[in-house]
């Protein structure tokens, strides 16, 4: 799923302070599920911007929270929010950058601002609440060669022929030896699958074009 974290309240206050009324719009998709930008979060942000917190007073007189099943879908936005936002001077979206841009395209006459810093595609794939970046949408997936562990994303250098010399006791030099070295994970996984042949195969340089943006896709899948 797409993840992110809310911008500091102070920064958001600075962005919206010149408006008298503000719609704060959540998304029930990825950010809603991870409780980063769903309806609940939109509601609490709307109230913070109106009432302020312990340190700062509120900056917007009139705020109200809404949500959309998926803010990355124009039709859904129109269906669920059509007409409801007319009275607001501006919109603050707690969706990912895709949602914010889709909202801005639908409400082309209003300023639409991001409430989140969108971070990455990832999941809570291990215990605890932490989210881990797992895929960077490189356009040329190699997971079939690497035991289902992405070296492009989970190796700090995105290496195709790791591990590098920076792996110590299975930990990566980036992040102070706290993160697992993706290539040691790949080695262990392929070994357990009895597929070290994949591990020991040299991978020539990558054609980077599939990952070079801005990218677009024809609709519909090749099935």
């Amino acid at each position, binding site marked *: 799923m797409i993840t992110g974290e809310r911008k500091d309240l102070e920064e958001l206050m600075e962005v919206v302070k010149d408006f008298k009324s503000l719609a704060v719009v959540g998304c029930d998709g990825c950010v809603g599920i991870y409780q980063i930008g769903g309806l609940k979060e939109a509601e609490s942000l709307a109230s913070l911007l109106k009432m302020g917190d312990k340190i700062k007073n509120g900056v917007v007189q009139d705020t109200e929270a809404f949500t959309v099943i998926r803010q990355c879908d124009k039709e859904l936005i129109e269906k669920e929010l059509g007409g409801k936002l007319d009275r607001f001077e501006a919109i603050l979206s707690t969706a990912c950058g895709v949602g914010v841009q889709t909202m801005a395209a639908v409400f082309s006459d209003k300023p639409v601002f991001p409430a989140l810093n969108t971070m990455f595609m990832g999941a809570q794939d291990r215990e605890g609440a932490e989210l881990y970046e797992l895929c960077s949408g490189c356009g040329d997936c190699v997971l079939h060669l690497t035991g289902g562990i992405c070296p492009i994303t989970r190796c700090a250098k995105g290496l195709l*022929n790791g591990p590098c010399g920076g792996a110590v006791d299975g930990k990566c030099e980036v992040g102070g030896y706290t993160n697992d070295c993706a290539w040691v994970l790949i080695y262990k996984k392929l070994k357990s699958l009895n597929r070290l042949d994949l*591990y020991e195969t*040299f991978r020539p340089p990558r054609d980077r074009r599939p990952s070079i943006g801005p990218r677009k896709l024809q609709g519909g899948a090749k099935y």
Partner: protein
Amino acid sequence: MRNIKEGKFVFTGELEPEKTTDLTELVESAKKLLGHCVACNVTDNPQSMAYMSSLVASYVVQRDAGMECVYQLRCSDRNSIALTSDLLGAGALGIKNVLALTGDHTTLGDYPGAKPVFDLDSGQLVYLIRKMVDEGVDLYGRPIHNPPKFHVGVAGNPNADPLESEILKLKRKIDAGAEFIQTQVIFDIEVAKTFLKEMERFKVPVLIGIFPLKNYGTADYFDKYIPGVHVPKDLLAEMKKASEISDKEKRNERYDEINLEYYGDFVHEIAHTTSAAGIHVMAVAYERITPALIERAKI
């Protein structure tokens, strides 16, 4: 490479251009190693520090000191276009050896906010060099006018755990065309021996990396801050004791003696009982130890 092919046990040295435009000291260091080392590596932004170009330093050292260089080239800072262009430049400047390195991550250095590149990794850099040298073409197969001639080496890490993953990775680099291996620093001779045994099947010359300790400060820093390798406790303790000698000359003499005692036997044993092709002596700013060590080791 010629020396290695002739079966001689060789020594290589290490030179580190820093944040300067003045290469006088580096050239002087190289001169001191003439006749003892067959070549010197010239480091490329080690630990991702923004230093003087290793290509320029290699050229100047070869020109002014007459010392053959192993031009180190990292993938951290250059994409495949820049690597190709630097390699063409290196060919024009008479560089004969390249050590292909992935390189430390940019966040570890003194420009931690720089954009990391890693368009290629060390194995892929070997692949590019082989294409240029053997086929006379670039990465995309376009012909190079007057293609360069290099020997290409890679780094190996005998301290890696699990070692098997490292050996298989080196196999990949050798498959890509690496001609020699210089290892990271080893203190434990058993680690070196195990690694050399594992590497025998590839029949690629291996130079074992050692790090003579210039003074206690260096030893202590290395032990604390270089991950994955530790200075043996006894050696560290002896260095510490030596550091308490107040007379500078006597202190340095003692440091030298400790290094010669430790590495003399180490190098002798490597040279006489293993398949290693030589020793890579990483004695940056401590050149005086290298000739003495070679003598002590009775090669």
